[in-house]
């Protein structure tokens, strides 16, 4: 054990700790199908609720609003959408997928009702605008994750 070096906390022990927390995550049939489509067909899939017409991406098994089974109602969304919001990541941390600064955006794909989070690249942070159109750029190598979309890039006008 260590003792605190601060003079007013003299002789106060600080107990060091380290937790190993291995685990796994079951993506489920629906989430897996979404990733497989990205990986094998480079297509972004959503599901449409036949009752309330909501289109969810990422997809759900049951509509969160009315509990209708929707996981057989797949719809292919385009690779383009609108940036509905964004932030610029400036704080550097070991787990981050890119060197800072980079842009994390909320992308509402054409035809979808729910935006999802991804990296926006190919534009300087000071030039990003809410409402600009962006397009998915797929990764060269698959990782079987959402990063099979490498990033979204501005659509050239």
């Amino acid at each position: 054990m260590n003792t605190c070096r601060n003079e007013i906390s003299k002789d106060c022990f600080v107990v060091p700790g380290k937790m190993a927390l291995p685990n796994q995550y079951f993506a489920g049939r629906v989430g897996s199908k979404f990733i497989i489509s990205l990986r094998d067909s480079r297509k972004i899939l959503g599901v449409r609720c036949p009752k309330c017409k909501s289109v969810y991406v990422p997809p759900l098994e049951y509509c969160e609003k009315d509990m209708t089974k929707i996981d057989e109602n797949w719809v292919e969304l385009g690779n383009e959408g609108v940036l509905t919001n964004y932030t610029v990541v400036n704080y550097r941390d070991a787990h981050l997928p890119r060197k800072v600064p980079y842009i994390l955006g909320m992308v509402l794909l054409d035809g979808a009702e729910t935006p999802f989070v991804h990296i926006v690249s190919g534009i300087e942070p000071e030039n990003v605008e809410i409402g600009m159109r962006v397009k998915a750029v797929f990764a060269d190598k698959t990782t079987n994750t959402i990063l099979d979309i490498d990033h979204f890039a501005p659509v050239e006008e």
Partner: protein
Amino acid sequence: MTKKKNRNVGIVGIGMTEISSHKEDQNQPEMINEAVRAALADAGITLKDIDCVVHGNMELFEMVHQPDLWHMIGTGALGKPEFRITTGGTTGMTLIAASDNLVASGMYDVVMAIGFNKLQEAGSTTGGITNMADPLWYRHLQTGALTSTSANMTIEEFGAERARKAAMKHRIMMDKHAGLNERAHRRLGLEYNQMEDLMKNSPPLIGDLRLIHMCSQSDGACVMILASEEKAKKISKKPVWIRDHIAVHREETASNAYFPILSENSHRAAARKLFARNGITNPVEYFDVFEMYDPSAWWGIEWLRDFFLLKGDEAIKMVENGDWDLDGKVPVNPSGGVTASNPISATAMLKPAEVALQIRGDAGTHQLKREVRHGLASGFGGVMWTELMILEKDLNWQGV
């Protein structure tokens, strides 16, 4: 004197998933959603009728921080008040106790309680559990969840042969009950003539605790919907009434080293206080069913003595006589109990859920043959954390 309840509360909806170790096809909110839909269908209501959602699991067992937020896509809590409760192994029962209090208080009319765990996603539950100990006083000394203390004590008191036989008989009885319950996780098809073989050949875990004695690691979710008396009578043809419940816990062997040594364990203290204030003098006589959180067969036979306030070898004798069997004096765990199914934070909720289904007569393939009017359910967790709950078919105990 019965604990004062502002108004009566009835169970009006029960939903559970199959309990299994192979739920790779569902993520967490999907598994929960299956039980939510089942409970809503059982009650014959929709999400619009739910005033509040109470959610719980073993903290961080699936390594998701604030899982209730993410799970909202499956819980239906969008736009509703929501509480999260995590009291270790007891969580499932604490969820029902808290939901009962929320409705009885008058705060909400209809509350939906959700308990779940996906233990196949948890990498190291023992790692999680041992971190509950205070880092200065106890963590360096903390062991884990597996112990043969109960076996040692029972053997010391009743002799090795009698104790080992009783524990194995209880275990095989649980498996026979699980065999009738299509949702149970482990249904091994054990027979009583395997007793000697299992006592010798089941892989030893620690001391006299063998693999066959121990609970499973399961995935599953349980959902219960509770309503005020007025609403319950409108929603359900046969609401099951929550008469009373008590929580007793003690931590003198964990982080708090200063507690005095108590003369009885938390189960016996809970039973003694709960039965006294409800005027129940002979629990073996009174209850038609008991669903017990029995993490191992050794704990099962030890704790029956405590829950029914029995003395000496009375409880073991009842094991030997088959008095806890489905056609015995008090049927114990018609569900198959925790040695069959243990999705931890659904586990303790499966106890009152099973009792309520038995009281309703809706337990299906494992419905008891006798009429079930008075039921008892227990939850267990922490070091010794007991929840004990009395459920009733009729609203007729007032003034007892």
